[in-house]
Structure formats: structure tokens, C-alpha cells
């Protein structure tokens, strides 16, 4: 049986936030008497993640995804509730726990700016107490997986964003962690660099059985990497389950564009009881429930003279976009 590697129970987090009124008067008031209020950004959430799982955290900006990730890796102290990652309480930041995890942030970097990435790799290797031989072996293996070679010896400031991200990944994985926390790792990367990064993460997960927790605003990252998603809405979990089930639930219909041989056939089809979305000359678009697609198509092909037909999947970004603004009971 696969073990739980992350166990979160009734987790909450509050921050003290100061607010300021606009204008000079507001600025002076803010300087002398700062008004702060406690804001609960994470509200009593619970979930488990199994070893080897890749889980995507979805949510609008400010929903609380990054705060959850930072509590899971031990950077932020929870206000209430408990967290166990690999059997450790993250915030205690025990050496063995830190050797087991890594955090990669798309918008922040740990590589030394003026030096080639290889220098940062060996520095990290010494921090993780790896000898030179072992460090070299791991650098070679990871650079092969990431398909980087010459870039290792070029100062970071001269690398492209994609090359830099690959190097960031190598620096963050040199200690072969079991749990990876990735906060928008593909941010700002071009399509090819995004694809390569996803390919690498899939391969890394397959080879090492590492658990991956990922936040991203690029739906392609989520759909190609995560079977399971946790949707966060205003600090609460609005959905936790399989991604395909969520998509089916939110989009129970498929749109089918049917090209009839004649306008007469199209007219007949329009009046045959199907849910018609629109009709232009001999082209007609109908909406069919997912569970009756086969039988409906059979009926159409047997009774009408059809030239061509196209089944359109609803755009995933649109569906997920709807999830991000929904509360638990709406999904």
C-alpha cells in the first residue's frame, strides 16, 4: 500500500495586514497610527498526499496556494492545525527533513548571478555534504536529463530564462529530494522550454518516485503532469480529486459540428430533437451529454446524410477558470 507522505489536518494561517487610506492624509495617518487587522488566508483545510503523487494546486491569485506550499516546506509557521511531511513537522526544519525536500520558485533564483551555474551546484553539494565524486555524478546525470551541457559553464547573467530555469532545477535537485514543491516553475518560459521542463518533471517522478506539489497558472502544466488537483478558493479547498473527474463534472457536454450534404438534411437534423447551438447553411453545431455521445452519433449517422463531423472538447482554460471562482458547494 502506498503511504501518505504529506498529511495536513485542520490547517489555518492568519497574517497581520496593514491597510492605508489614499492621499497625503492617509499616508500621514498610516505612518503614525498603522491600522492592522488579522486576515485568515488559509481556513481549516485538510488533505493527504501519497508517495509518488503529482498534485496540482489550483486557485486564483491570492487564493492561498503559495501560502500552503510554504507551510508544507516549513517556511511559514501555521496558526492552527498540524502538518506532517515525510514524518517530520516542517517548521522545525530538522536537517533530515531539509535533505528530503526542495522548493523551486519560478520567480526567485538561488544561483550565483555572476558565476556559471556549475559553481552554485558544487556549493549546494557541499551544503548537502556530498563529496566531489558523488556531486559530479549527480550533476552529470541531471544535466543529461535536463539536456544542458555548455550552459553549465556560462555565467548565469548571460543565460536565457529557460536555461536559467533548468539550472535552477539542477541546483534544487542535486541532493535527490523525495518531495518537490514547485511554485509556478514555468513562469515566463516559452512554449518549448515549458514542454521540456514538464517532460523532465515527468521523467524525474517516474525514475525516483518523488512526490511533486505544483502550483501553476499554465493549464498545460497541470493537465500534462497532475492526475489529481486541489482547488483553493479564498483559503478553503473547493475541490480535491482527479482532474478528469473535475473536467467531466464541470463540462458534462461536448460540442459536435456536423457538416450535412445538403441544407435540407441540416434542416431535418435541426428539428429532430437535438440540443442545437447554432446552424449556418449545411453546418450545424449540437451539444451532446458525454455519456450519450456514442448512441447519439450512431443515430445521426444512420438517419442523416453526413459529409463530415468534428467533436470539440471545451477549452480547458475556460473550465478551470470557472473552478477558480467557485466555492465548494458550487462544484
Amino acid at each position, binding site marked *: 500500500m502506498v503511504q501518505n507522505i504529506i498529511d495536513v489536518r485542520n490547517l489555518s494561517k492568519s*497574517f497581520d495586514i496593514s491597510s492605508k487610506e489614499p492621499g497625503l492624509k492617509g499616508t500621514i495617518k498610516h505612518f503614525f497610527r498603522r491600522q492592522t487587522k488579522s486576515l485568515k488566508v488559509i481556513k481549516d483545510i485538510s488533505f493527504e498526499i501519497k508517495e509518488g503523487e503529482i498534485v496540482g494546486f489550483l486557485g486564483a491569485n491570492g487564493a492561498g496556494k*503559495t501560502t500552503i506550499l*510554504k507551510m508544507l*516546506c*516549513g*517556511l*511559514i*509557521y501555521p496558526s492552527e492545525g498540524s502538518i506532517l511531511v515525510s514524518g517530520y513537522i516542517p517548521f522545525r*526544519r530538522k*536537517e533530515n527533513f*531539509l*535533505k528530503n*525536500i*526542495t*522548493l523551486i*520558485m519560478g*520567480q*526567485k*533564483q*538561488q544561483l*550565483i*548571478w*555572476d*558565476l556559471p551555474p556549475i*559553481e*552554485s551546484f*558544487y*556549493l*549546494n553539494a*557541499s*551544503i*548537502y*555534504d556530498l563529496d566531489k565524486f558523488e556531486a559530479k555524478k549527480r550533476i552529470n546525470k541531471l544535466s543529461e536529463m535536463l539536456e544542458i551541457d555548455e550552459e553549465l559553464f556560462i*555565467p548565469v547573467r548571460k543565460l536565457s530564462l529557460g536555461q536559467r530555469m533548468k539550472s535552477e532545477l539542477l541546483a534544487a535537485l542535486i541532493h535527490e529530494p523525495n518531495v518537490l514543491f514547485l*511554485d*509556478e516553475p514555468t513562469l515566463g518560459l516559452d512554449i518549448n522550454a515549458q514542454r521540456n521542463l514538464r517532460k523532465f518533471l515527468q521523467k524525474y517522478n517516474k525514475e525516483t518516485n518523488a512526490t511533486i506539489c505544483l502550483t501553476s497558472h499554465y493549464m498545460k502544466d497541470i493537465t500534462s503532469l497532475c492526475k489529481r488537483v486541489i482547488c483553493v478558493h479564498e483559503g478553503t479547498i473547493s475541490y480535491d480529486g482527479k482532474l478528469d473527474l473535475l473536467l467531466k463534472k464541470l463540462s458534462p457536454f461536448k460540442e459536435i459540428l456536423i457538416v450535412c450534404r445538403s441544407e435540407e438534411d441540416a434542416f431535418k437534423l435541426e428539428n429532430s430533437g437535438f440540443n442545437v447551438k447554432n446552424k449556418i447553411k449545411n453546418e450545424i453545431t449540437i451539444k451532446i451529454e458525454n455519456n450519450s455521445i456514442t448512441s447519439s452519433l450512431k443515430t445521426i449517422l444512420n438517419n442523416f446524410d453526413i459529409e463530415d463531423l468534428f467533436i470539440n472538447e471545451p477549452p480547458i482554460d475556460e473550465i478551470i477558470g470557472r473552478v477558480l471562482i467557485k466555492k465548494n458547494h458550487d462544484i
Partner: protein
Amino acid sequence: MNLRKYLKVYKKFLHTSLASELEYKTNILIDLITAILSLIGSIFLLSIFFQNNGYIGGWKFEQALIIQGIYTILNGITNTWFNPNLTEIVKHIREGTLDFVLLKPIDSQFFISLKKINPSGFLEIMLGFFLLLFCIRINQINLNLSFLTLSLITISCSICILYSLWFFISTTTIWFVKTWNAIEVLRSFLYIGRFPLNSFSFSLRIFFSVFIPIAFITTIPSEVFLGLSQLWKILLEVIVATIFLITSRRFWLFALRFYSSASS
């Protein structure tokens, strides 16, 4: 704590920060020239003070030069280690890159205090050292084991006090986010350390001994050089340095509980 690992990491810190600095040759050259000119300027200023009066606060010019020598060494240490690292804490906290430090299996205070070095500060340390050797000659100081031990102890304590004060201010960034001004005030106070404590009024002497112990930093080691220091003063400096070091360490660990990391 695994000492071997920490030594290995420090060796890597030295290597990477030296390599980073050497990427910018002109900058190093300018820093080196600044260090030499700054020392010449300080000695010139001191000589002006002593021009009309042979003594200030009971100190002769040749004796006051010792304070200048110790100040130069401490300023060199400040520029080599404290300035590049401790000012970076503010940046780490504001930009949220402290996250990477806290998630490394290494002491975070060690990491952020020693990761970088500025090689041009070494020249200042050497200049200060040569100035002290010159002062030993002109003041006809007898070099013996107890003198060397006491000098080493008091200078080490001065470094600890200076580091703790700076680190303490930088740590408050976790709450206040910007503390550049406080660090600048501390640096300004350090300039005062170039003059003998006795040259200030009684109230200022109390202020610089009790509230901001700048007096301990240069005056006590200088008194050791001249054989004027009393044992209680040296013991007091050791106690103050220990208290400062422990307090700054505890304060850092306490402050980390309030670290909220920068938003993404």
C-alpha cells in the same frame, strides 16, 4: 554541528565570492584605492586635531594612532564580511530569497553572515596591521605573550560586539522590512571609534559605553597596546561581547518565527 562540513562550505563560500568579485576588476581597483586614501585622510584629520595641542583626552598623537590602526582593522573586517553579508539580509527578506537559505540543511545565521566576502577589505586589514606594527615601534611597546594574548582577546571581542550590533539591526528587518537607515547610523557611530573615549564629555562616554558600546570596540584594545588597560575593563569587554553574541543569536531564532516570506 559538523565542523568538517562547515569548513568545507566556508571554503566554497570563499571560492565563489572571490570568483564573483574578480569578475569586476575595475571595481576592486577602485575599492583598493579608496581604502588607501581613506586611511591617509583619517591620519591627516587626526594630525590636525593634535596640531595645537599635544594631548587629547590624555592621549598623545602616537598613542591615538593605535586607535586608528585598530579602527582600520575593524573597518577592514566590516568591509570584508559584515557589509557584503549583513546588508544582504535586508534584500533577502524584502525579496523573499531568505526562503532558499532557510531550506538548506545548514545554520541560517552561518550562511547569511559568511556567504560573501569583499576582497578589497583585506587591504584595509593589512594596512591597519602595518599601522599597528609602526605604532608598536614608535611607542616602544614590549612584545610579549601576555600582550599578544590580551590584544587578540580584546580585538576578537570588538569584532563580536560589532558583528552582533549589526546583525541585531539587520534582523529587525523581519518586522520593519527596511532598516538601511539604522545600519547607516551604526556606521556613523563607528567613525567615533577613531578617537579616544576620554576625548568625549562624561555623558557621551556613558552613552558610547552603555547604550552603543563603540567605546569597547577600539579604546579597550588600544589601552591593552599601551599597557594602560585594567583587568576589569578587559573582563567587562569579554562579558559584553558574550552577551551581545548570545542575544543576537537568540534574537535571530526568535525573529524567524515571524518571517512571513515575500509574496510570489
